[in-house]
């Protein structure tokens, strides 16, 4: 079922309408394995909608999504996740009443093969505890291990969310604005964290911060009004006159 040389993610003629309004208007995109791909575009371009279509939160109106060569369009989120795709959210989405440790452990359970088991004791699996602690170490939250996740600082919660997202060992990681609302130093910290934890994996992210995009991404797609107007390396995209006209120009002007 998993074609070995299929691209990590392939979108073919993807469309999504809400009522009469078409938000995604025919997106074709191929993302190779191991690539770090950023999707940028002005507000309201449909970046989050595209994300939600790929991850199963929304069902496409037409078109298909292929994950590792397998058609996943219209599948439930948990099924897509089991096939090796994991995502984070624009608004922090964790289990606030559970401890940091529990948050990470829960995100490991399915991939460790526990499924809906009610005959294992989670506390008695050394393997599970060690794997959880290893991830906490990686996202630098070991000191916060036993605190309820809801009391962490914003940046810590974002780091936890990245930890939860990659814990299950998915080979395609999708991050929706991972640095939204962060200070400069926090952004730098999260970018380094993302670079570390997605080593050897396929990364797809939506991001507004251009320094993050150009620092992290191998390739960039520009989404404007539900269509991809350009895809290429950061240099190519930067040089593309249509992109400059539609998006970058405005953004750069605003920065100056």
């Amino acid at each position, binding site marked *: 079922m998993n074609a070995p040389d299929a691209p990590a993610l392939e979108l073919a003629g993807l469309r999504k309408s809400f009522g009469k309004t078409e938000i995604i208007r025919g997106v074709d995109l191929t993302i190779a394995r191991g690539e770090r791909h950023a999707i940028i575009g002005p507000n309201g371009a449909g970046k989050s909608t595209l994300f939600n279509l790929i*991850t199963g*939160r929304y069902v496409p109106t037409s078109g298909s999504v292929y994950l590792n060569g397998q058609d996943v369009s219209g599948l*439930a*989120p*948990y099924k897509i*996740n*089991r*096939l*090796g795709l*994991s*995502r984070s*959210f624009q608004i922090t*989405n*964790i*289990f*606030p*009443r*559970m401890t940091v440790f*529990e948050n990470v*452990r*829960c*995100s490991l*359970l*399915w*991939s*460790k*093969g*526990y*499924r*809906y*088991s*009610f*005959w*294992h*004791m*989670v*506390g*008695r*699996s*050394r*393997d599970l505890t060690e794997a959880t602690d290893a991830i906490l170490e990686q996202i630098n939250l070991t000191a916060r291990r036993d605190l309820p996740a809801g009391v962490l600082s914003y940046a810590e919660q974002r780091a936890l969310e990245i930890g*939860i997202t990659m814990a*299950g*060992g998915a080979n395609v990681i999708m991050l929706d604005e991972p640095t939204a609302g962060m200070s400069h130093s926090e952004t730098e910290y999260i970018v380094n964290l993302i670079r570390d934890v997605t080593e050897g994996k396929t990364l797809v992210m939506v991001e507004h911060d251009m320094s993050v995009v150009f620092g992290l991404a191998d390739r960039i797609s520009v989404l404007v009004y539900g269509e991809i107007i350009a895809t290429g390396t950061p240099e190519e995209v930067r040089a593309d006159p249509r992109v400059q006209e539609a998006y970058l120009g405005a953004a750069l002007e605003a920065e100056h």
Partner: protein
Amino acid sequence: MTDATHNTARSASITFGQFLPWLVSALFLLVMPLIFPSNAALTIMNQMAITIVFALAYNMLLGQGGMLSFGHAVYMGMGGFMAMHIMNWIEFHELPIPLPVLPLLAGLFALGLAMIIGSFSTRKAGTVFAMISLGVGELIAACSVIIVAFFGGEEGVSGDRTYGLPFFGIEFIRQIEVYYLTAAWLMISAVLMYLWSRTPLGRMANAVRDNPERAEFLGYSARWVRFYSFCASGFFAGIAGGLFAINYEIVTEENLNLAQSGMILLVTFLGGAGFFFGPIIGAILFTLLQTVLSLQTEIWQLYLGILFVATVMYFPGGLAGLLMMHTIPLRLGKLHLLFVPYLKMLGPALLCVAGFVGVFEIVFHIRNAAPGDTEMTLFWITFDSHDVLPLAVSIIAALAGFWLARRVVPELSAAWTAANTPDTERLI
């Protein structure tokens, strides 16, 4: 896809500390009949045990799974009806089924029902789930007067537990034998429900309760997690129903109607849904109020209602939450700071409560006593309920108690803050 590398290292053996509460509970259950040997006390303790099993089962939904059910008595009641029928079959067909397995069979029957109902009711949580549970509860309660063959109509189904096979020579004629049977099932059920909360499924039930969408993006179907919790909860509620059938030898429509479902919600919330042991406290308190307080006053349900409303408004964590609030002062070694303010609060609070009780009881007596009967006894004092003096004293006591209690509040809250603040000097 899943690389099931199960190095389920059976390393961390159960520590004595984890085991201790269970050992103490078991000893407690063993010793109780020696302290309270009367049949009346045994009946109360049996009722407590049954309510505890039911409340713990209910909390698998409410506290651990975040599912608010208004119809959970259905599973206890149906388990009870099934147990009664099996009891009668044992008698008439001389089936070789010993009485102690009856709760298990009742549980399995309730499990089957929960699987059918849960298959559609657990698709959504929140209001949808609550409304379906209400509808199903009403539906089955209505069935009980229609399907007389199973529910026995208005008089219910009754039987005799003593006609079955003796279980190692025990015939369950004496109340004490029933007590130990009930206590054994209470221990088994409570341990199993606790262990359930430590399994991957039990942990994911918490996750789905907190954030179903996030759980879905971690590979778990929120709906199936809810479904399995629902089935397990139905199973244990059925066990409670089987125990009820053995104890009372009669099950009627009252055991599965909405009032009963509301009762278990109240018990669980009163005890505290956020902690495993919360429903146990709730069930003990409720049974005491129901059995002991109801002998003292006809309006005990009014007091129960006030207690419930006060809990919802001021202590949403229930009694267990109230107890657990004290773990921080305890850990900081500052619990002693609270003793004096608590004692200062106790007097006015008791005065206030006694005053209000006086008002309620006197008014109730004036309105409901037989014509011409004006003599009543309250707090060991006999007086004429139509006199103005007792009512005036009660009102003054209530107001004075309230006013005095209010005056202690600043001191109490200051002490509370102090008890919860760590010594910064010690940290530096």
